[in-house]
């Protein structure tokens, strides 16, 4: 199997890198799910929207760093808007209804993003944001392995974010309240947890995560709504890691990333290629059959 060992190393590296990027999308998703029980389909779109805002503003002549600040501001406004117009009136509704509402958000964001910034793909302003460019090429194993610096940066940033968020959830007052809200809106209301405030916090955090994700993804390819289809890959990552687990997002991401790259690389050609499009789901499914709540998800309570 290992006819070209450098390629195996490279494959694993690529898998890890895409895993980190999937995990970043999944992370924003986990945040929202954990805090409100909402299966936020719009997360992928939020990633594009955030990046598009950043790049779009820059295109309009705003300096890069200011654009970054403004983009964060836009994500805050978005969080407030979502809370005010979607979540608040839909409090205590079944999950699937909220899920559906996030489709509405998806549409609104696509419409808004393209209306304001135009539909043509844009280049990420990675240089202006002081992101590293280029690659480190390691000669090894009779070939070479190339590590993109931007990927390394992405991994570092993702690790930091995930550590911070995991701590936040398990060990702070707000974190506990978030988990309570995810469990039951009604009960959370009754003990005086301010859903409105919590939701704004969470959606804003998810928005910032989306912005970071958007910058990373955008630096690899370009920024357009086509990118949002990749965001779907976050879904198998999520079910593998568990909807409610921050560490699950990263572990799930890595497993899926490496799994699908290796699968495509070694077995893809046997069946004509392109199996990456569904392999991730089957990997996740296989894990799920043994742990229906994902690797790190909250146990499904069955009691009567």
């Amino acid at each position: 199997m290992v006819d070209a060992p450098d390629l195996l190393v490279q494959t694993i590296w690529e898998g890890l890198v895409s895993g980190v990027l999937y995990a970043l999308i999944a992370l924003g998703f986990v945040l929202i799910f954990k805090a409100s029980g909402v299966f936020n389909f719009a997360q992928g779109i939020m990633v594009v929207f955030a990046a598009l805002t950043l790049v779009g503003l820059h295109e309009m002549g705003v300096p890069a760093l200011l654009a970054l600040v403004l983009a964060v501001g836009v994500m805050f406004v978005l969080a407030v808007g979502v809370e005010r117009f979607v979540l608040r009136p839909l409090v205590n509704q079944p999950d699937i209804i909220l899920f559906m509402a996030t489709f509405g958000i998806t549409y609104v964001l696509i419409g808004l993003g393209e209306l304001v910034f135009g539909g043509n793909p844009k280049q990420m302003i990675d240089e202006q944001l002081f992101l590293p460019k280029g690659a480190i090429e390691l000669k090894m194993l009779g070939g070479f392995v190339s590590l993109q610096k931007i990927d390394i940066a992405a991994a570092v940033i993702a690790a930091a974010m995930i550590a911070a968020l995991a701590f936040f959830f398990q060990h702070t007052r707000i974190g506990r309240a978030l988990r309570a809200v995810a469990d039951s809106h009604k009960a959370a209301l009754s003990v005086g947890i301010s859903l409105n405030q919590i939701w704004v916090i969470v959606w804003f955090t998810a928005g910032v995560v989306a912005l970071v994700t958007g910058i990373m993804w955008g630096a690899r390819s370009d920024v357009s709504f086509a990118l949002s289809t990749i965001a779907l890959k976050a879904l198998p990552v999520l079910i593998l890691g568990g909807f409610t687990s921050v560490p699950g997002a990263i572990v799930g991401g890595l497993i899926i990333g490496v799994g699908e790259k290796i699968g495509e690389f070694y077995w893809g050609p046997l069946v004509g290629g392109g199996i990456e499009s569904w392999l991730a789901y089957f990997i996740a499914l296989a894990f799920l059959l043994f742990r229906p709540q994902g690797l790190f998800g909250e146990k499904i309570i069955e009691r009567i």
Partner: protein
Amino acid sequence: MFYREAGQYKTSYAADMAIFPLLQDRIGIAVILAVLFVGVPLFASEFLISTVMIPTLVFSLAAIGLNVLTGYTGLISLGTGAFMGVGAYACYKLTTYFPGVNIIVWIVASGFFSAAVGVVFGLPSLRIKGFYLAVATLAAQFFLQWCFVRVPWLYNYNASGAIEVPLRTLFGLPVTGPNATPEARYLVLLSIVVGLTWFASNLVHGRVGRSWMAVRDMDIAAELMGIRLLPTKLLAFAVSSFYAGVAGAAMMFLWYGGGEANDAFNINQSFLILFMVIIGGLGSLIGSFFGAAFISILPTVLKFGLPAMGVPLGGATAEHITYLVVGGLIIFFLVVEPHGLARLWQIGKQKLRIWPFPY
């Protein structure tokens, strides 16, 4: 005022169990059917039939299918598009192998193939629940979609890689292929939809439907009452995929008239059907129709309606605004009534009943 059930007593269980127990409702249904079968083909324009009526009917069928699964059994599926695709390809293969058999038979029969595929992908539902299952059904979506491209046998190895719809006739009249008039295709489709809706309605109102709903509402209790979960869920998958399959075949053969099936049955299609079910009302057949009409007509109305009303919009801007408006309306309707258009309709009827009093 006119919508009162007062004085309509049921003297037998059979009468009480009728699906439309009220006389007014029965008359209403008769009128609607008459309009659909006679009025529309006679008076509606070709554009109306082919871009409004036919798509709505196709989607209604798919939505009914998904409603069986999601609305009645509580299993969310994001693979409807792919199951529709299975139906389309099954129909294509069947009609090329057996061109002698009437196409309508094959359109309906293709449902069995997607039912079988649906059952296979429904197997994990025993262990996996909720959104986890929803995402797991994406495996079906992407895998099947991959097959549609990768297995040339499915599209008869033709160069375009697309389903090519041959000319087929019913009573000498072309019903598929480019020569079939929209009216003919519409009537065939309408008959299929009406028939299958009747079946669905019978199912959900009887033992089968009750077991589905029991599993949906409280699976543990259902199991403790002797309802076996796996067979019940698989049956839901089968029936649901059957409807999706027929919808897919109908879509290719009676609406699109062939084309790139891989593209037509993609993930967005699955999402769209789910929209319809939720917007229309989970667990409501009539809701499936409302939802299908809403989602399939709204963009068309906005796209062609706004300019017609004199709102001067460029194509792209209109499209962006359409996105905005559709998204906004989805949220708006959910906020107004999370249980969907069907519930709005019901409340409307209820208000009519107690009219002129507010409650």
